[in-house]
């Protein structure tokens, strides 16, 4: 029973609770200083980023009324009262969405192939040459740090308007991102099959093909699917800079205040992204379940 607990002698209790209090004080002080640093940084950022709370408060109504307008047809009726009128451009938009998904698809495949070819040269266990390894690593870093839409802007000038610059931009960014993830997987493989392949006279490509790829392929596929999901979102805005897909119509609708079109296109994008999320998540769980290693 609780009554059987005996209180500690007074001086022992005082020493223990004193130590506890000072420990807690030190921890509190730490937390407080950390909090203060964040608050100062936030105020400085707010000043630089021209945060204007009065403007925000006076205009926040416009944010909600924007959604109100998004839900209103030109006739003044609510969008859901006339679905046919709301989604009047469904055929055109579906084709553009198809383009968007194909841009993401082709970009992912080409980028994954690029990342696949480069990842072995960027792995410390397979590429002993420091110079080559680091050159490849820096190159991959460059590819994934420059945002894909910047590549798209430049490629639109070089290749002309349309989906091709979008595909290339996504491919380059994907190669950078996947190359790094792939090489991390490769660095964690079991080296015994590699030794086996080398010791029985296998060449470098044979060693990769028979000793490395079987170990990593399911993880590679999982990362690629994840990347495809990200790329669909990326491809949806490629049209903002003229690089194909649904983005072109979306930015036009936003800029020209075709409110019901904006909401219709947004809903189509969100729906597509959600479906792709669900499908790829299921596929990835199956892949990793079958592959066994993470």
């Amino acid at each position: 029973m609780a009554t059987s607990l005996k209180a500690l002698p007074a001086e022992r209790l005082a020493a223990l609770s004193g130590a506890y209090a000072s420990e807690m004080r030190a921890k509190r002080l730490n937390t407080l200083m950390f909090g203060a640093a964040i608050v100062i940084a936030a105020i400085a950022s707010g000043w630089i980023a021209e945060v204007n709370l009065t403007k925000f408060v006076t205009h926040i109504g416009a944010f909600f009324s924007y959604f109100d307008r998004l839900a209103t047809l030109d006739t003044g009726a609510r969008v859901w009262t006339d679905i046919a009128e709301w989604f009047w451009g469904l055929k055109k938009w579906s084709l553009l969405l198809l383009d968007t998904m194909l841009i993401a698809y082709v970009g992912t495949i080409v980028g994954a192939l690029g990342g696949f070819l480069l990842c072995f040269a960027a792995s410390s266990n397979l590429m002993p040459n420091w110079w080559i390894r680091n050159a490849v690593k820096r190159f991959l870093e460059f590819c994934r740090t420059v945002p894909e839409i910047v590549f798209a802007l430049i490629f639109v000038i070089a290749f002309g308007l349309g989906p091709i610059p979008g595909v290339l931009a996504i491919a380059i960014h994907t190669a950078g991102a996947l190359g790094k993830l792939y090489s991390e997987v490769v660095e964690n493989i079991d080296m015994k099959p590699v030794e086996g392949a080398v010791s029985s006279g296998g060449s470098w490509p044979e060693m990769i093909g028979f000793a490395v790829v079987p170990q990593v392929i399911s993880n590679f596929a999982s990362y690629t699917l994840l990347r495809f999901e990200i790329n669909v979102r990326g491809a949806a805005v490629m049209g903002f800079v003229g690089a194909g897909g649904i983005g072109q119509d979306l930015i036009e609708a936003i800029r020209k205040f075709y409110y019901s079109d904006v909401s219709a296109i947004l809903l189509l994008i969100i729906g597509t992204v959600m479906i792709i999320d669900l499908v790829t998540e299921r596929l990835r769980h199956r892949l990793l379940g079958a592959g066994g290693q993470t």
Partner: protein
Amino acid sequence: MSRTSLRAVALADMNGLRTRHTAEFAVPRERVIAIAIVAAMIGLFAFALYRFEFSLTRIINGIGNLGSFVPLMFPPSPGSWPRAWLFLHALAETVAIAFLGTLLAAILAFPLGFLAARNTTINRVVQFMSRRMLDSVRGVDALIWALIWINVVGLGPFAGVLAIMSSDIGAFGKLFSEAIEAADNKPVEGVTSSGGSHLQQVRFGVLPQVLPVIAGQILYYFESNTRSSTIIGIVGAGGIGLHLSEMIRTLEWPSVSFIICLILVTVAVIDAVSGRIRRAIVGPVPQDAH
């Protein structure tokens, strides 16, 4: 019996072997499926190229164009001192947008994460609703949010902050709720058995477990938001992106490469700093695909 003669015997009796061991000679089902998947992927790829009116001459011409103006990017140079100052200011704006956007998103997503987690939510309906809300917020890209917020607060970096915030609430809410669901239930039981209320269970049972995880995720998103806030200016929401797209459109290549170098350096510095803080808080975490 030597190896060669065994081989000769086996080859001579090939048909017999086939009929006696049909299972061993059958093509495995997995391989058939794999080949079918690869074939379908190649088919889709070809269809996409056809739809995009892909042609080799266009690619070669494009690469020729790239070859003609990429050399113009060297050496990177802002052109003039006032302009260099302008770029640096825009860069500071970019970092500020990323920092404030991430911070606000984290603060707003924090309660939502608890609502969307199975073990801390109020009831199933609330959990379901908050999950779906977070999903739909996540489906909209930061650039689209920027366009919406520009309508509300006008052009400028403030719209960028709000855009980063909006697009991250969804991601944070989902990640937080996953971290909360992964929390060990024993501390919660301890608090419950000593008479703690629902709120105390969350505060003393769940929160200490998930805070380091959440802090790591916030830092990770700060890094990735620095990348996204460099482009948010393309639609007019402040930061370096505005200047970058301007310089690309006016074909001022040395300035373009100068800005790209600025971005690369900034991202590298922020990665290094936040990576160090993150390791101090949570230890090495697996990198997300980004």
